[in-house]
């Protein structure tokens, strides 16, 4: 068994852990760090429920080995808003009913956060392109697009 010691900063907290080389980053986040907001919705990297920011860029954490994240800064859904408050996007998701079951929501919010960090006033097409990697089975994306527009001040 190949074990590695890795150090990561997740939502500003530093962790040092032993991981098996074969462990996926998403399982490390969920099982080892108990940050269960990041979800698994498929086993082929299509659904985006496991999306996190890795050094500021949106990635699917089921397509990386945990050991690859050694030294990285990671933001998960739990890190999107300060304690007790909602970010403008989180607030807009609730106001516009952009979530039903809420299972895709963490990944969707991370992707939307990333999108607005790159493009603060996206067009509808750019919003759809920005969340193309996140599958939602409940909302048909209608209200998600609306919420992202609203959070972008449109």
């Amino acid at each position: 068994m190949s074990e590695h010691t890795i150090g990561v900063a997740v939502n500003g907290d530093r962790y040092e852990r032993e991981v098996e080389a074969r462990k996926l980053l998403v399982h490390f986040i969920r099982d080892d760090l108990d940050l269960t907001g990041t979800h698994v919705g498929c086993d082929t990297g299509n659904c985006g429920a496991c999306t996190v920011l890795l050094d500021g860029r949106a990635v699917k954490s089921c397509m990386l080995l945990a050991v690859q994240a050694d030294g990285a800064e990671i933001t998960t859904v739990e890190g999107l808003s300060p304690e007790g408050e909602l970010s403008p996007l989180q607030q807009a998701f609730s106001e516009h009913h952009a979530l039903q079951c809420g299972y895709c929501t963490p990944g969707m919010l991370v992707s939307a956060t990333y999108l607005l960090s790159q493009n603060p006033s996206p067009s509808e097409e750019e919003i759809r392109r920005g969340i193309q990697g996140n599958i939602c089975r409940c909302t048909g994306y209608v209200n998600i697009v609306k919420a992202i527009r609203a959070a972008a001040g449109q």
Partner: protein
Amino acid sequence: MSETTVTPTQVELEVGYAGKSIPRKEDQRLVKGEGVFADDLKRHGMGYVHFVRSPYAHARIVSVDVSQAEALEGVYGTLTPDEVAELTDPFFELTTPPGSQIKDYALAVGRVRHIGEPVVAVVAATRELARDAADLVEVEYDPLDVIVDARRAQDDDAPIIHEDAGTNVVWSGIFDWGDIDGALKAADRVVKIEELHFDRFASTPLECSVALVEYERATGQFTLYCNHQMPGVAAIWMGPALRVPLDKLRFVTHDIGGGFGNKITTHTYLTACCLLARKLKRPIQWTEWRTDQHMANAHGNERWFHDIEVAVQNDGTMLGFKVKAIDDCGAFPRYEPLGCIIWAQVTPGLYRWRNIRVDFTQVVTNKSPVAPNRGYSRMQQLWLTERICDIVAHELGLDPVEVRKKNYVRADEMPYETPNGCVYDSGDYARCLDIALELIDYEGVRARQEAGSGKLIGIGIGSTLDSGTNNFGQSTLLNPELQFSGNNEVATIKLDIFGEIVLTLGTVPQGQGHETVAAQVAADILGVSPDQIHVRPGHDSYWNSHAGFSGTYASQFAVTGLEAVKGATEKLSLEIRRLAGAVLGGADPDDIVLEGGFAKRKDNPETALPFMACGAIVNANNAVLPPDVRDVTLNCRYVYVPPFELPDKERKFGNLTLTYATQIHACVVEIDPETGDVELVDYAAVDDCGIRIHPQIVEGQVHGATVHAIGAALYETFAYDEYGQLLTSNFYDYHVPHALDLPEIKTGHIESPSPFSSLGTKGMGEGGGAAIHAICAAIQDALRRAGKPAIVNDSHNPPERVWRMIQNPEETATLVEVTAQ
């Protein structure tokens, strides 16, 4: 007409929350990633299960050897088919003999009957180790011939999938209402359609099935933390199979990542987990992976329609039709054969057709078992009625809009009794259609069609009904021996010692916002804000707030769930008012009003008892209680029972469901004539579900149901090859709609209150697959306008199929024959 309600963030304290789109209670935790989904739970010493699954669609199991797997360090143990056969009885079957002789176990016993069927379960200290060990399990198979095409299942040389039954037929029967033979003779024309096919797909909730099962040896108690969406029914299956009383199976759900019916038949896996928890004396954790979910859990029913004959007058009025239907339920019936009757809730669709004969047969094939899937069994029937409308219109040279309007049940005929005794409660289909057509600029698109362009433009309509609140008595039309009828749902509400109001539902929500909507209804009755009502998330059978049919399925919460909430809350209101009346000087309960967390005397509002005092008196200071209110518990349970009767088994006649929400959808497609690629360029969904308690949630359900159906029409299919290999086992090949695939979905609505629910609500949310029907209609319209006489004969139309219809329209045109008489 397109409307969206923007929710105010601050809710004023006022009476009248029902009807307003208040922020959902669920959202706070879900947007922060603090939702509690079943896979989030952990227990000390738990073992992870991995199932060894069949690589064959049909094979005899020659031998199973788990010795190498068990020898691996970190492996806690295994479960084999032999153990399952010894420790459990087969799950009961709902159908009649010989189909009822089918034996369905937690693992494949003796044979495997579909790809991915679980054969052995392995438990280890980590997920990865369990998988490592599963790779060491040796199973020897002797492959058998397979059936993937339901039309061949009754052939003489067809392999028999369940030898115990001796036939591949699960259920078969004839439904005959009115006089179709007379109608076919009397009609000006008969339109015959040789064959139509409703394809296999599923709503594929993003969260797969999960369970964490604990077993307490001292009491023999199993606790299943899981995401089963209808635990009461799971218990009925599992108790007898495990040979334990139902109360020994405690089901707990919290947040569920979508269900859509696909989480109703996971009892096979849950049973395996129970056996392992007991055998290995440790908590057992099971997470289904996406590929497993696609191969071996819950597909939607696939259906073939043959020899359709429609009795038509020259003006497009239809008198009825007859059809032979073959339903493909995959390798095991499980919830079936209920799909053999559920369609009858919408027998004539939205139409005034009085003469209908359906010869219905359900067969098993070597494919994944089916389960109820959003629009369950009705959408197949509604697709048939919508296909009939468009094919008849095009063959007779009539306008599909006019043909629909001519045949729709009219608003002034409501409540309308269908030929088989179902009662359509309310609605105005023609008006909904007008709104939908306006939303897509029908006249403008027709003008664009006339003008012509490089693309083939088509307009399609899908008219459907979402029948809600089942009368389970319909099961007796399939099997007279079954002891199911009516329906029920439960809510419990209490006023606690510090004045908290706690509402417990029997429903098992999966994203429908029950916590919010229930709180709205209760808040209005108790004169408080929804924020002041704590609705417990999820379901726990230990709360004792459920009944036999509890759950979230079949579009019923707005009726069964809310009627239970209303009933329980009214009981609580009466108790509070009795209590306050007694405490506040002997006032009559009717003279007490509940407002702002106080029970006040109407004649003197300054004389008021805070809810906190009510809770405290009853729960902790009851020696002060006047004698005539000593029965007050402030803990009120109410069971809602809808007004159903047993259907007539002889005539297969009766009211099978309580409410009918209407969906009329219209869409515009543009087809690339060189590639067959279909682009959905405009879409409108008009919904009428009676009184809406939370319009935004209703609209969200409309969006979701629409997109499931768009996916089914254009992208999603569970396709098998001739060997029974599933070809779309993941989200690469099973393409669900992504954000870029969809146009903006316009919505409109009317409200036709149901006369059968006290709130005027109707169940909604499943929809009737309207987008499938609308898109099929639009493709056919585009082809016809381009001079191609093709009919759309399949519910699933990927580019190649459309291209073939353009290249060779005769291929499907010859499926139709019109005879004049």
